[in-house]
C-alpha cells in the first residue's frame, strides 16, 4: 500500500526561516569576501560594495607570502582527516565494545570517562605542553594530531548509537554460524554503524579543522600552522602591521570563507551515508 505523503507547507516555511537564520551570517561572510578592505568598512555589510573584488581577494589570499595559505590549508587537511578518521575508528571500536558487551567495570569506566570530560580543557593545555615537550613532540604535527584522536564525545555518540543500531539477534545468529567477535564486527555490525561512524568523522573533522587553541600552544613555526592560527596571524598583522599589508582584512575574510568550503564539500559527500541505515524501504526525501 502506498502511503500518500503530502509535503507540509507549514513545516517547510518554518524550516526555511530557520535556514535563513543559519545562512544569514554566512551570507555576510560571502558578501564581505567580495569587498576590498576599504569597502569593508565603508559600505553596508549585507550587500555588495562598490567594487566586486572576489577574484582578486582570492588570488591575494592564495599567493600572499609565498602561498602560505595553501601550506596552511594542506596542514589543516592532514590534521583534520587523520584525526577524524582515527578518532572515528577509536570511538566506533570502543563504543561498540561498551554497548554490545558486558564486562566488569564497564559502568565504572563509562562514568570515569564522562567525569573526565567535565573538566575544561583549558586546564590541560599547559600540562599537555609540558608532557609533549618532554618527549620532543612540541612544534610537530603530532602535537596537534595525537590529542585530536581522542574524542570522548565521539565515543559516547557511538556508544548510544551502537546500542540501537546493531541488532543483538543478528549478532547471535552470526555467532551460531561460527563467526568470531572481530569477524562479526567487521562483517555484520559495521554496516549498521556506518551513519554513526560518519557522524563522528564529520564532527571530529570540523572540530579539528577549526581547532585554534591547541595548535596555537603547541606550534611555533608557522609552516605547521593550520588555517585557524594562520588567519589570526594575518588578522593581527592588519592592526598596526606594515603598510604593505593594506589588504589584509579582506584577505582574512576571504581566507575564512575559502576554509569553510571544504567542510561543506565533506558534508555533502558524507551525508549520503546517512541514507544507508539498516532501514529497508526508507522514507525517501
Amino acid at each position, binding site marked *: 500500500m502506498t502511503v500518500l505523503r503530502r509535503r507540509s507547507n507549514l513545516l517547510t516555511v518554518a524550516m526555511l526561516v530557520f535556514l535563513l537564520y543559519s545562512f544569514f551570517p554566512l551570507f555576510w561572510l560571502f558578501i564581505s569576501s567580495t569587498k576590498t*578592505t*576599504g569597502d*569593508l*568598512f*565603508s559600505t553596508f555589510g549585507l550587500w555588495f560594495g562598490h567594487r566586486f573584488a572576489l577574484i582578486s581577494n582570492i588570488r591575494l589570499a592564495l599567493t600572499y*607570502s609565498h602561498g602560505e595559505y595553501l601550506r596552511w590549508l594542506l596542514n589543516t587537511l592532514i590534521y583534520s582527516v587523520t584525526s577524524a578518521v582515527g578518532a572515528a575508528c577509536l570511538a566506533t571500536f570502543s563504543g561498540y565494545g561498551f554497548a554490545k558487551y558486558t564486562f566488569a567495570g564497564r559502568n565504572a569506566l563509562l562514568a570515569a570517562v564522562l567525569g573526565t570530560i567535565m573538566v575544561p*580543557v*583549558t586546564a590541560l593545555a*599547559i600540562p599537555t*605542553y*609540558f608532557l609533549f*615537550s*618532554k618527549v620532543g613532540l*612540541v*612544534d610537530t604535527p603530532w602535537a596537534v594530531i595525537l590529542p585530536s584522536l581522542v574524542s570522548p564525545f565521539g565515543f559516547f555518540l557511538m556508544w548510544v548509537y551502537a546500542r540501537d543500531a546493531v541488532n543483538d539477534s543478528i549478532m547471535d545468529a552470526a555467532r551460531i554460524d561460527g563467526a568470531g567477535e572481530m569477524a562479526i564486527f567487521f562483517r555484520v555490525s559495521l554496516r549498521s554503524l556506518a551513519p554513526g561512524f560518519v557522524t563522528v568523522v564529520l564532527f571530529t573533522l570540523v572540530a579539528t579543522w577549526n581547532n*585554534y*587553541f591547541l595548535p*596555537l*600552544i603547541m*606550534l*611555533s*613555526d*608557522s609552516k605547521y600552522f593550520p588555517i585557524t*592560527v594562520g588567519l*589570526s*596571524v594575518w588578522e*593581527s*598583522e*592588519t*592592526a*598596526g*602591521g*606594515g*603598510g*604593505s*599589508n*593594506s589588504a589584509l*582584512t579582506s584577505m582574512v575574510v576571504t581566507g575564512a570563507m575559502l576554509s569553510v568550503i571544504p567542510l561543506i564539500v565533506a558534508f555533502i559527500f558524507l551525508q549520503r551515508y546517512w541514507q544507508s541505515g539498516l532501514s529497508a524501504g526508507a522514507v525517501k526525501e
Partner: protein
Amino acid sequence: MQIPEKRFTRRGMLALTGAAAAGLAIDACSSSSSSSGATATASGTVSQSEINKAMKTPTTLTFWTWVPDISKEVAVFERQYPAIKINVVNPGQGTPLYTKLRTALDAGKGTPDLSQIEYQYIPTFSILKGFVDLRPYGAAANAGKFVDWVWRQVTGPNGEIYAYPQDTGPMGMLYREDIFAKHRISVPATWDDFATAAHKLHAADSGTYLTNTADNEVAAWHGLMWQAGSRPYTVHGTTVGLALDDAASKKVANYWGGLVADGVISTDPDFTSNWYQGLDTGKYASWLTGAWGPAFLAGAIKSTAGKWRAAPLPQWNSGQQVAGNWGGSTNAVIKGTQYPIAAAKFAEFLNTNPTTTAMFNTQQSLFPSLKSLLSSASFSSYKSPFFGGQQANKLFAQISATVNVNWQWPPFLDQSITDWTATVGKALGSKSNVAAATTQWESQLASYAKAQGFHVTTS
C-alpha cells in the same frame, strides 16, 4: 578556543611611518657594518678573537619575530657572515609569542636563540631571567647611537643590557584637516585648547567627536600618562613601587573623564569593525597615536587619503614639547641559547647596521630608533601623499626626541592591562569617575603583586 589578543600588543608595535615603499632613497654605505668592528668595552667581556671565531663557526640561530619579510634584512647579515644561518620563525604577534616564550622558558626546552620583544614586556621576562645580558658582547658601545629614552628602556637596574632597540612609536596627533577646516578649528597646541575644540566641534556636529579615547586601549592611555610625566611603575628587582594614581595620572584621568562625561569625546573600543568605520566616515576627527599610525591609516582607511595631517600631541604647559610612546620592539637574546656570541652580534648588526635599519623603515615602515637614521636627509625629507604632502617623518623624528626618558614598565604588565580595563576602561565607557578608577586600578594591581611575592610600595 581562542587566545584573546591583547589590544596592547595588537598594533604590532611595529612603529610605522607614512614613508611606505616608493620614493625613499637609501643612504649608501651598505658594506661598512658597525658590528664587526665592535670594540670590547665593559670589563669581563668576550674578546674580539672569540667573537671572530664565533662568527666564522657554522651556526644556525632560531629567531622568533613577527616582522613581515624580515628575511630581506637577515639576508644582508648572512651575506656578511656566511657561516651563520638564521632560521626565522613567526610564532604569532605579541601575546601568542610571549605565551610560547614563557612556556618554553618554564619547560626549559624549545626556546629560540633570539626573540622580538616589545619594550613594555622587557621587565616581564627579565624577572624570569629570560634574557642574556649583552654587555659582555660589546653592547654598551652602541648606547649613543640610539635615542636616549629608547636606550633606557632596554637597560636594567644594574646596567644590564637586555636587548637592542629596533623601532619605536612616539606619539603624535593625526587629525582630519578637512573636518578642522570645515568647523574652523585650529590645531590645538595645549590640552586646554583641545578641550575647547572638542566642545566646539561636537556642538557644531553631534555625530563627530574630536577624538576617540578607546575604553580598551590601555597602551594609548599609558602613552598619555607617559607624556604627562606620570611614573606609575618603579621597579628595583623584586621591589615594585606603584603610583598609578599619582598627580600626573589623576590629571590625565580627570581631563579625559571630564570630556567623556560631557559627551564630546567617544570611547569606542579600537581596532574593531565599528571603529574602522568610524575612522572612515569621519566620526573621529583625530587620532592620538604612535608614529606607526600614519602607515596604518594609509593601509586601512584608503578612502580618506590626503585628508590627514600630523601634529605633535597637545601639551600640558604651553611652550613645552613632551611626548609619550606607544609601541616599538627590540631583539633580545634568550637564555639557554647555545650561541650567545653569534646571537648577540646578529641582534647588534640587525639593529645598528645602516643598510638593514634603513630597510626596516622603507620596507616594513618601522619607525627608527637610531639617531643617525632619524636625522638623515632622505628620511626627513619624505613627503607623504596620505598626509597631503606633509613631511610626517620629520615631525615624528622631532617628537621622538621629546619623549620623556623616565618611564618604566612593571614585571606583570598583562595583569595591569586586565586591571586597567576593568577599572579605568570601564569608567571611561560608563562615563563615571575616571580618577577614582585609577586608585582602584592601583589597589587591584597592588594586591596581585603582593600575592605574587613582590614587595610593594604604593603612593
